[in-house]
């Protein structure tokens, strides 16, 4: 019998995929799972954050956005349970989007940082005489440096930084300061020019009658507002004639910086601009109202008097004199306008320099005296101001306008309860409006004191009404201008028969008395 040796069974094919690893490195393989199996956030995290954001948006009043956002979160939560694979894909897509946004923001923030700080650093170190990369030490006797002492380095082993031995040699501090100075000037110029608009300041000119006035024909655009000055130095959008157009009710407002409104508003946002706009909106069908603001920063009654003497009342039907108590005693020679430029500067820094110089000059020359002092000179000025107030009213009547309304401006810098009589400043009391009232009484002029407007206002309301978030107690923010415009409408309605007639309003007694408008939230 033939016994053949059976041929060995063929060995199973092996490949890199089928080759089994041996019993080693189990912990290492587990350690690598963090790379092969990326971790996902816990399932509850996404809906919790999402619904929290939606809830927050609801609370702050963004209701539609909250509903949309909350719905999307709810859909994603549902998807997580119904089709987790798709949910993961969506989350992955969102994560990629987030990474892209992060990268874009990185570029947006880091590029300018590099392009601004980098060249400056290069110039600065060069001027300082430092050479951190040793590029200028080709002729040095040796290129070895001494390291920090070993004991210092050893002590520092736990820190993530080296303690470096500073290389010998002086530093050109003067040069560095010069560079810093130049850079500061450049940065200052750019900021003052493009943020504050100081390169294009409002210009003033000397005037024999009114002391000074705004240069006519200016068109100033700052980063925050715009000012247009017409042919009569009024902050008004177009030139005007001394004679009013036919069928127009013209109101002339005589005021100071409060009426001017600040360069952080447009013409139309001042209370004079709003007054004109609202009058035309409310009563404008077939009628036309004009409100001419003869209001200039730093003006007092003497300036207004001079202005009216020179230009007349522009055939106004009503004249409103709205004056800050603190401006009453400004003499015609007050230096407040000289801090402003008479000609366009080449650089924004020039404006600041002029303003600073004038401030210094004023303090040195005038001894730092401002207008609010209680000595004999101060009282004399105050008397003159009060007299000017009276003369102003009389001149207006003389120039042909019978209706003159005096309004004390509601301002925080004065004690609201003592509005009528006293002002507290520096511990002393000045009887500003009291003195003015006594003068006005002699010619039957009436001055209104709108205490109601400011009474009982909360901090939030105050911050809303006054400029700089309530810090500027004498000037109005946009809301303040709006409230005062409405107040003036009320005053015209209450006090001006001519206005009532033109506007077609009933006479007092024939209809409800118009009430003073209260600030509303």
């Amino acid at each position, binding site marked *: 019998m033939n016994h053949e040796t059976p041929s060995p069974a063929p060995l199973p094919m092996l490949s890199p995929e089928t080759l089994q690893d041996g019993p080693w490195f189990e912990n290492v393989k587990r350690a690598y799972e963090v790379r092969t199996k990326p971790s996902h956030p816990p399932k509850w995290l996404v809906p919790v*954050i*999402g619904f929290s*954001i*939606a809830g927050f*948006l609801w609370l702050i009043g963004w209701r539609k*956005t*909250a509903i*949309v*956002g909350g719905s*999307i979160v709810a859909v994603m939560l549902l998807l997580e349970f119904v089709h987790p694979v798709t949910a993961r894909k969506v989350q992955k897509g*969102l*994560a990629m*989007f*987030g*990474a*892209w*946004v*992060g*990268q874009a*923001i*990185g570029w947006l*923030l*880091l590029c300018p*940082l590099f392009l601004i*700080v980098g060249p400056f*650093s290069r110039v600065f170190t060069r001027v300082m005489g430092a050479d951190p990369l040793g590029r200028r030490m080709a002729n040095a006797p040796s290129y070895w440096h001494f390291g920090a002492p070993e004991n210092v380095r050893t002590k520092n082993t736990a*820190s*993530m*930084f080296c*303690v*470096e031995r*500073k290389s010998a040699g002086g530093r050109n501090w003067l040069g560095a300061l010069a560079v810093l100075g130049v850079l500061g000037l450049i940065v200052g110029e750019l900021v003052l020019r493009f943020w504050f608009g100081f390169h294009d300041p409002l210009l003033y000119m000397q005037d024999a009658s009114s002391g000074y006035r705004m240069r006519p024909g200016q068109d100033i655009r700052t980063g925050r507002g715009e000012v247009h000055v017409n042919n009569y130095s009024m902050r008004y959008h177009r030139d005007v004639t001394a004679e009013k157009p036919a069928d127009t009710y013209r109101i002339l407002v005589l005021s100071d910086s409060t009426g001017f409104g600040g360069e952080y508003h447009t013409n139309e946002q001042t209370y004079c601009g709003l007054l004109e706009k609202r009058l035309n909106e409310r009563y404008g069908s077939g009628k036309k109202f004009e409100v001419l603001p003869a209001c200039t920063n730093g003006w007092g009654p003497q300036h207004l008097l001079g202005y009216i003497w020179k230009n007349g009342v522009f055939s106004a039907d009503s004249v409103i004199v709205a004056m800050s108590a603190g401006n009453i005693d400004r003499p015609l020679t007050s230096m407040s306008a000289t801090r402003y430029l008479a000609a366009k500067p080449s650089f924004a820094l020039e404006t600041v320099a002029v303003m600073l110089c004038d401030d210094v000059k004023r303090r040195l020359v005038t001894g730092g005296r401002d207008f609010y002092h209680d000595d004999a000179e101060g009282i004399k000025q105050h008397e003159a101001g009060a007299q000017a107030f009276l003369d102003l009213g009389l001149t207006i009547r003389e120039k042909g306008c019978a209706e003159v309304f005096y309004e004390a401006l509601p301002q925080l810098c004065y004690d609201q309860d003592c509005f009528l009589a006293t002002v507290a400043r520096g511990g002393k009391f000045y009887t500003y409006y009291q003195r003015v009232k006594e003068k006005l009484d002699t010619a039957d002029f009436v001055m209104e004191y709108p205490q109601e407007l400011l009474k009982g206002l909360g901090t939030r309301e105050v911050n809303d009404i006054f400029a700089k978030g309530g810090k500027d107690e004498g000037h109005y923010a946009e809301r303040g201008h709006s409230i005062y415009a409405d107040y003036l409408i009320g005053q015209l309605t209450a006090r001006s028969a001519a206005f009532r007639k033109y506007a077609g309003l009933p006479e007092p007694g024939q209809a409800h008395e118009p009430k003073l408008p209260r600030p509303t939230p």
Partner: protein
Amino acid sequence: MLHLTWFFRIIRDVAVYGWKNRSFGLAAMILVLLGIGLIIGAAAVSAPWIYTLF
């Protein structure tokens, strides 16, 4: 917690580095960069929630 601990450690080391080496400018720059890093991180994390703004 780990992130916070190490974040404060880095801030501390940056501050001490600036002081010991009198390199205040560089230390300030690194702090600015870390701040930018936080903003980038926050933006990347919160960007997916951008749909809540629509």
